[in-house]
């Protein structure tokens, strides 16, 4: 075995998986996991830990895996994270823990994500009980939103003995884990559901179908329902459109709508009632992970699927692994291309998209080369469905109904690194504060806020 190379991970073949919704990556089996774990140098001063937003004791759990003490490994991770099977799958490890791994200097980093995923999956398959909590302290905390930030904050507080209730606007819990990230990257019924069940096993109560700001307000929770603190983890779920002509044509969707129909409402299964309309040739506008999810989903629904991105491949914000997977599956990348108008047929349906070719000019203040239009490069792409995956911003609903919260110019809630907002007893974290980011950063914010909430409640009691 070459110590400098990762143990390869088994995957569904590209030409088969691009027609189904089953998970692409099979993950490691016990043997492969143990072999990969043996590559870890068990550094005295592990750099990988600093690269993890929730500071998991990475060498600690990897040594357990190496020694085949899988239950022990699960317990090590559980001290830091309640969602290992999720994070092991969707974290961009190449820019976090694995980027810091010393093996990465001369060879390939230890596959920390795949090992974490293995431990998460193993403990689910073996029904490992990780629900150790402190004695109940009778203090109530409300969590708004059941995405990664809220789930983590709730789990940590429950472990400290708090009486925690999560309020979720949708009919299912998990936030972007259930409505956004597709089944082929993150299986819902097994992986996501089990990790949420684990949080419920800690005694966390979940109320779905409650929209904070409409069904009940934050002030009512604090003043009338006896909650001592509220954590806002409502994410950044508002879609951005381009504002170009024709955008309201039939056949133009936000990636949020398209992915919600497919993932949350299971429109791809015929026994579910929600329809999804997809054409023969789909253009997904954008280059991030959501764009990759949307384009790979379109492919699986039987369309010819294109990524339209205004910069070049080097600037694609999506994870390398996802771009690679998309290409293998047959997604066509139209780079340095930008739509300027959506063309509409006599019935109001998309029947083409006017685009321009771009080139990269001088670097702007952020250091990125600014794309600019090539004069006279206009052309028409023959497409019948357009999906806008240009990013999202926080929903203003909560802030507009809560007096005393400050917002920044991006409409994100102002909170310090501990999660404390301008309003006493109200905390916030995740995408609601930093704008659309990653699952693990949201979890890190949920953790910090749980600490701050505990500290403040203890101080106010004494």
């Amino acid at each position, binding site marked *: 075995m070459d110590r400098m190379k990762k143990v390869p991970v088994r995957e569904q073949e590209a030409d088969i998986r691009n027609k189904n919704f089953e998970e692409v990556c099979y993950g490691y089996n016990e043997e492969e996991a143990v072999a990969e774990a043996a590559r870890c140098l068990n550094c005295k001063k592990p750099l990988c830990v600093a690269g993890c937003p929730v500071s998991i004791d990475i060498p600690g759990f990897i040594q357990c895996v190496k020694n085949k003490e899988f239950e022990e490994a699960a317990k090590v991770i559980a001290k830091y994270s309640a969602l290992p099977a999720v994070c092991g799958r969707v974290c961009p490890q190449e820019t976090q823990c694995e980027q810091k791994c010393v093996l990465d200097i001369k060879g390939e980093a230890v596959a920390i994500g795949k090992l974490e995923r293995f431990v998460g999956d193993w403990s689910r398959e073996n029904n490992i009980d990780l629900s150790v909590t402190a004695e109940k302290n009778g203090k109530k905390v409300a969590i708004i939103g059941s995405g990664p930030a809220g789930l983590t904050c709730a789990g940590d507080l429950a472990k400290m003995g708090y009486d925690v209730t999560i309020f979720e*606007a*949708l*009919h299912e819990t998990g936030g972007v884990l259930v409505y956004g990230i597709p089944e082929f990257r993150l299986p819902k019924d097994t992986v996501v559901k089990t990790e949420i069940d684990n949080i419920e096993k800690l005694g966390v109560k979940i109320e*779905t*179908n*409650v*929209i904070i700001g*409409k*069904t*009940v307000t934050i002030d009512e929770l604090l003043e009338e329902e006896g909650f001592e603190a509220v954590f806002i983890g409502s994410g950044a*779920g*508002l*879609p951005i*459109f381009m*504002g170009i002509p024709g*955008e*309201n044509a*039939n*056949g133009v*969707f*936000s990636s*949020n*709508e398209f992915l*919600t*129909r497919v993932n949350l*409402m*299971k429109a791809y299964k015929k*026994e*579910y*009632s*929600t*329809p999804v*309309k997809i054409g023969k040739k789909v253009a997904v506008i954008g280059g991030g992970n959501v764009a990759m999810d949307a384009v790979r989903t379109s492919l699986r629904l039987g369309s010819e699927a294109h990524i339209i991105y205004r910069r070049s491949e080097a600037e694609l914000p999506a994870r390398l692994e996802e771009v690679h997977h998309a290409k293998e599956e047959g997604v066509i990348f139209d780079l340095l291309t930008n739509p300027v108008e959506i063309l509409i047929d006599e*019935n*109001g349906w998309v029947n083409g998209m006017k685009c321009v070719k771009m080139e990269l000019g001088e670097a702007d203040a952020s250091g990125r080369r600014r794309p600019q239009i090539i004069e006279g490069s206009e052309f028409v792409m023959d497409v019948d469905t357009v999906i806008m995956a240009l990013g*999202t911003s926080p*929903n203003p*609903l909560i802030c507009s109904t809560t007096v005393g919260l400050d917002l920044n110019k991006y409409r994100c809630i102002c909170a310090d690194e501990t999660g404390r907002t301008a309003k006493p007893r109200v905390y916030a974290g995740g995408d609601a504060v930093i704008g659309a980011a990653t699952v693990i950063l949201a979890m890190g914010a949920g953790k910090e806020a749980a600490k701050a909430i505990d500290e403040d409640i203890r101080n106010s009691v004494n």
Partner: protein
Amino acid sequence: MFKILKKELLTEDIYLMDIEAPRVAKSAKPGQFIIVKTDERGERIPLTICDYDADKGSVTIVFQKIGNSTLEMTNYEVGDSFKDFVGPLGQPSEFIYENIEELKNKRFLFIAGGVGTAPVYPQVKWLNQNGIKADVIIGTRSKSTLILEEEMKAVAGELYVATDDGSYGFKGLVTDVFKDLLDNKGKKYDHVVAIGPMIMMKFAALATKAYNIPTTVSLNPIMVDGTGMCGACRVTVGDEVKFACVDGPEFDGHLVNFDEAMRRSRMYKTEEGKAQLKTEEGDTHHHKGEGSCGGDH
């Protein structure tokens, strides 16, 4: 789970249900709506709120059997529960924020079309509770499709009914009644609220525009989440794109692009037709119902 407390058949295809939903009942205001999902596999359907009772913890919805999901809802009986029921959604009617004394000087006319009579009711009722008698025109196909007549009479000023076939009240369209009131009956109105099928709201808005009367309409586009996260319900109002679920559902009727809104609501017509056919006639159509589903494509 959200229990059905009452089920009543108002006409041959319009149903009324009281649903146990204490949080929604406590916060509901006129002009708002809810989203209901029958079971695990159901879709999310937006329905306007017809009435609410915070003490009983119940919310009244009225729906017409028009597609697969509403058809399925009719199979639920008192004591059964819907899996999901979320709300209140959308902005309340603007007038509830106005100064009551100033409101009392305003002459309101409500124009209700078909099942749109249901969302008009809580608005007229609210005004009545605040000492304001609003006039109401209800337009419907025939006497047998008229709903909530007695309820409306109890809270409205004058109530006018128009039927397409003349089987009850005035024979003709709501806009005919409207013009007759202004031209021949000496009526004057400061504000019109029109709620009903998109086509009726379009023509009501055109009619009121001719008399220069500010007009509010309540749009009913396709929705998924109803909380502003997807934009399925986007509509053009004036020069702006709005999400009906969070910015509306009520908008200035003179600024709404109705043609675009109507075109967008037909987006899933064929799929709906197929689904309904499958439910009504069983899974016997192996050609997936294409060409025989009544869709418009």
